[in-house]
């Protein structure tokens, strides 16, 4: 059981100038499942490996349970890590793999066996205990890697994209099992993924990283409702939020015939910054077909059965923008139709530089 704290922790790889993780500040509560999410190369793995002790912390510190572990080697941190490629010990059986950490800790053979069997029972691995990793399927290997971590009841669980080698269906299933397992064990977990759906469904809180910089940490719901900046707005949510640069005229954002009045605080901020263009954001599910509003031709219809996403080609100013609008499954809209849509939910406004305009 443990709390984890990053304090302005940075990692600068030798031979590079820009930190791969830049002054990361992050508090992870005891028993929390925190997901680190971000595009490829954003420093997620690096941040995780810093916590594991596999990567030097060049600046700042890392605490586990208020103990400064910044300079401690991995074996003194009492953490368990699941690697993306599982990193099973190829010459050992499943049971030996799972018991390895206990063996290093000097646990007796019988005790080890008992704990391994117990973990194998939780993970449905009992029939495979005497097999070598290479004779297992991908999903089984993933579970062995999990088993290796849970056998030792560590302070913190670290997972680096543990599901990315599984097929889509197994991934969804394992994702649920993993979250359930974490809740049952009540262990602190830091989970890395590049998949925002995985992040949203699993995380108690989600930390969004980009270029080594922490963009926002919040519950999935808050991330969705109130993205702190343009990057988070575009990254979280599927399909992605419509983000369109629009002119501001008379305190309203103008989008091809649709005039969206700005809320007071946004209007004040726009005036303060002297902006005449802002970025307007609305999720497809917060737009709806209407008799009046922005209009355009339907360019693409993505039919999902229960609902459909239509891409409306809106001419505004000199440019055309595709705006994605969610419609009900029974709406009969075809490619080439002329439609109009209006606002039917939350709207977001950002500075062209990416800041959210309605304050913190």
């Amino acid at each position: 059981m443990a709390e984890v704290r990053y304090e302005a922790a940075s990692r600068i790889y030798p031979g590079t100038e820009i930190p791969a993780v830049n002054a990361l500040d992050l508090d992870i509560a005891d028993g929390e499942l925190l997901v680190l999410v971000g595009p490829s190369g954003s420093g997620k793995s690096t941040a995780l490996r810093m916590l594991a002790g596999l990567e030097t912390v060049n600046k700042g510190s890392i605490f586990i349970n208020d103990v400064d572990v910044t300079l401690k080697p991995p074996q003194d941190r009492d953490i368990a890590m699941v690697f993306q490629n599982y990193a099973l010990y190829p010459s050992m059986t499943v049971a030996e793999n799972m018991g390895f950490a206990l063996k290093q800790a000097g646990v007796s053979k019988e005790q080890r066996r008992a704990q391994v069997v117990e973990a194998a029972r939780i993970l449905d691995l009992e029939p495979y205990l005497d097999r070598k990793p290479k004779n297992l399927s991908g999903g089984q290997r993933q579970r062995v890697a999990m088993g290796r971590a849970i056998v030792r009841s560590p302070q913190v669980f670290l997972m680096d994209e543990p599901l990315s080698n599984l097929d889509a269906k197994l991934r969804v299933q394992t994702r649920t099992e993993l979250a359930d397992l974490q809740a049952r064990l009540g262990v602190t977990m830091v989970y890395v993924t590049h998949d925002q759906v995985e992040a949203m469904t699993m995380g108690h809180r989600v930390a969004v990283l980009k270029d080594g910089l922490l963009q926002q940490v919040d519950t999935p719901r808050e991330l969705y409702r109130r993205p702190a900046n343009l990057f988070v707005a575009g990254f979280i949510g599927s399909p992605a939020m419509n983000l369109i640069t629009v002119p501001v005229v008379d305190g309203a954002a103008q989008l091809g015939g649709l005039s969206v009045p700005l809320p007071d605080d946004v209007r004040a901020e726009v005036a303060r910054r002297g902006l005449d263009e802002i970025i307007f954001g609305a999720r497809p599910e917060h737009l709806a077909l209407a008799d009046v509003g922005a209009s355009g031709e339907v360019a693409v219809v993505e039919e999902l059965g229960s609902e459909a996403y239509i891409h409306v080609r809106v001419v505004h100013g000199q440019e055309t923008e595709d705006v994605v609008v969610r419609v009900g499954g029974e709406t009969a809209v075809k490619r080439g139709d002329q439609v109009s849509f209006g606002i039917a939910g939350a709207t977001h406004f950002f500075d062209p530089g990416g800041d959210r305009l309605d304050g913190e």
Partner: protein
Amino acid sequence: MSSAITEHRDETEHADHADEVRRLERREGWNRRLPILPALIFTIVVTQIPFLFTLFYSLTDWRIDTPEPREFIGFENYGALPDDKFFRDAAWVSVQMTVLAVLLSLIVGTALAILLDRKFFGQGFVRTLLITPFLVMPVVAGFLWKSQMFSATFGVLNWVLELFGFESIEFATKYPLASVVVVLVWQWSPFMMLIVLAGLQGQDTSVLEAARVDGATTVGIFRQITFPQLRPYLELGTLLGAIYLIQVYDHIDVITGGSPDSKNLPFYIAQRSIGGGNRFGLASSYSIVVVIASIIIANIGLRVLSGLLEDDS
């Protein structure tokens, strides 16, 4: 009705197709065989034909120092072998020399490989330097060690001994087998090092990291993770090293001149024939015995090795 017709058509299509596949496979087979054919013919000419000649000579009493004609004597040469004490001695030297040289160069090579398998400034340069002994010709290596290292008057080793107040020793005379083995190890360690290095660098780094996170010490990681993964490489090194080291001749000739304690089978056989013994028929029979024994031992060895490998995977 219609289903019968389609079935029939399917069958003929099947047959046509199979013919085509067979033709392609035949061509593919030749495409593969043709490029290695010259090498194969060459190998047969230079190894198998001499072997057949040797087989034939071994059944004769051929010697070139008497004018008598070459006579066919059946297995008489082979019958003489059990009584030849020198053959037994040479066989024992062969075993010692091969086993010691292979094992020691494997140990030294592994140690060097472990040292080289970490990043440091000038790594490439050091690796090249370490490989050089392997590139030295055997005869040159022999001379180098004999005159520069072992020699009682000029040798570096004796200079060091004298520095510490010891008597100088004529190593090659006093410890002939050890002297030869030292030079063999010096030459073959780089080879083992390269093989083991390939094994070390082929390791999955995340496996080693996982072991560190799991609390293993550096020594523990080597023993429990690295070493089992290195085993196929060590076995390959052993096999290749043994194949070469069992036929050592040059080093012995140069360093000890084939004194009794350092005379291995190839050297002894050469002595009995081209080396002045002139008993070509007898020496041929010895060669045949050595070849057959080697094949038997190598086969057992290979089987044991592959058994171990399979057990591992």
